[in-house]
């Protein structure tokens, strides 16, 4: 297979609606996603970006597909690391499935290029952010390591 892919599945004790809000609304993302916010009108074709606490664009793209509380597909271009930026657009898909008391969240981040530096880098970052998201929704507290923007980045 000529692509680079990262997949993460986690089961979170919450509702699909709360999880969706946590993934998209600033008052949540600031707490588990390194104090960043996402700017977007959340409709098909809308532009989207992740904004760092000092106002820089970390990642940007467009909403490809949106089905509230179920599925969100974004194109994703990284801006901070030149090598990852040079690789161009990747694609992110969130899938939310309610299963009784829990929601199964699948995060698929992929790039049409083998050996992608971006996918390698995000493979290290996503698990911590998603573990923190789960902690926030289940206990009301995110993980400390994800509450601030990393120094020097």
């Amino acid at each position: 297979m000529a692509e680079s892919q990262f997949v993460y599945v986690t089961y979170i004790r919450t509702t699909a609606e709360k999880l969706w809000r946590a993934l998209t609304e600033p008052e949540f993302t600031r707490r588990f996603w390194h104090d960043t916010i996402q700017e977007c009108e959340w409709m098909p074709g809308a532009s989207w970006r992740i904004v760092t606490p000092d106002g820089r664009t970390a990642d940007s793209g467009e909403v490809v597909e949106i089905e509230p509380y179920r599925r969100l597909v974004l194109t994703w271009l990284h801006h901070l690391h030149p090598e990852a930026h040079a690789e161009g657009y990747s694609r992110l898909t969130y899938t939310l499935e309610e299963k009784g008391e829990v929601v199964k969240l699948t995060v698929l981040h992929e790039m049409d290029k083998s050996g992608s530096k971006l996918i390698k880098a995000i493979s290290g970052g996503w698990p911590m952010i998603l573990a923190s998201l789960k902690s926030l929704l289940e206990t009301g507290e995110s993980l400390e390591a994800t509450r601030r923007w990393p120094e020097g980045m």
Partner: protein
Amino acid sequence: MGSMGAEVDKVFKALAAPERRLLLDRLRADNGQTLGQLCTHLEMTRQAVTKHLKLLEEATLVVTIWRGREKLHYLNPMPIHEIAERWIDKYERGRLRALAELKAKLEGEDNG
């Protein structure tokens, strides 16, 4: 989902077989493979691979996603990340990584 303890038991049980660790290594090298792709170059029957994948899926170490008519298997880092979070202090992580890199360098390989 059962209790936390039952989930962790499944992960350790799934990891306690060299064939299943080999399957995880194959997915780490090339994530998103069909059953057929996973079976090539393995000295295991298709039935054995299917059985091992089932245990890996029950432990959520492997997840599947349908792409058209193909069922692709992916390594899911979540369970191992949770285990690491539980026993490895965040301040130890940098030092452990440095030691692992040193060991790999000295031993001249990166799959230690």
